[in-house]
């Protein structure tokens, strides 16, 4: 039998990690908190790929490795594949998950959304909510970067969450 962890536990750990780095360790330095969270994700992705690629042949090009991330790797992590993969054939790939599991339970307070944006307080609240949500995405960005780095592909990964709970990860391969 495969050993598994309840999904709610993983959700809790990720949220608590983000809260700890943003609210306690680096409350005054959000960019440093983001770097630390991404670094943890990097280590996780780095380690997991070594395990998930054990039974399969090695990758001979970048596209094969990206497809592995979209299918096998994403399935292992989130029990579903990436919904859409786009590329410009010049080293940039966009991985789109229409219902990213770590964002499905995240919502911005509707009272903040409905209030008039001219009100400074509500705008600030909205910004901080969006910033907190974006902080959650540094971890999966790190996971993808760590996974690809371990497969011999040096890259940078950013996330776009303009349409919650959908999420796009932009992978730019460094040549």
């Amino acid at each position: 039998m495969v050993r598994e962890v309840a999904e709610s536990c993983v959700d809790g750990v990720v949220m608590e990690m983000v809260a700890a780095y943003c609210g306690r360790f680096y409350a005054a330095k959000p960019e440093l908190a983001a770097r630390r969270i991404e670094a943890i994700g990097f280590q996780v992705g780095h380690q997991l790929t070594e395990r998930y690629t054990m039974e399969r042949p090695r990758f001979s090009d970048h596209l094969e490795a990206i497809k592995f991330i979209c299918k096998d790797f994403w399935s292992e992590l989130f029990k579903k594949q990436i919904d859409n993969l786009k590329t410009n054939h010049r080293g940039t790939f966009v991985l789109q998950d229409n219902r990213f599991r770590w964002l499905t339970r995240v919502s911005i307070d509707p009272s903040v959304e409905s209030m008039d944006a001219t009100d400074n307080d509500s705008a600030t609240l909205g910004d901080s909510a969006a910033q907190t949500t974006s902080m959650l995405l540094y971890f999966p960005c790190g996971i993808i970067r760590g996974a690809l780095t371990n497969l011999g592909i040096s890259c940078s990964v950013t996330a776009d969450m303009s349409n919650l709970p959908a999420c796009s990860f932009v992978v730019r391969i460094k040549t």
Partner: protein
Amino acid sequence: SSDIHLLWQKEDLAYQHQFILHAALDVVQDLAWSTNAMFLKSVDRFNDLVVSVYVTAGHARFMLLHDSRSEDGIKSFFQEVHELYIKIFLNPLYLPGSRITSSHFDTKVRALARRYL
């Protein structure tokens, strides 16, 4: 005097083996992206010594310097060492790329060598 000479010979041999393996790394680097196979048999030779290599998807390289032996045995040895390596690699306290100091790992690898090689 002869004892000292033997000791020098032994040391020379150890350095020579290291040198042969390091020299083969360049060949492995080129081969790694040109094939999907993990087990790269006989990538380099030096006199009667052969270098066999196993490259994981994460580009970790297991290298074995040997005289002519059963390829199946070597492949099985590498596959089981890979499993042991993954257990080490997944330890959150292990820093990827650092030296593996686990005596348990050492014992298991030696046991596998006795079994397959």
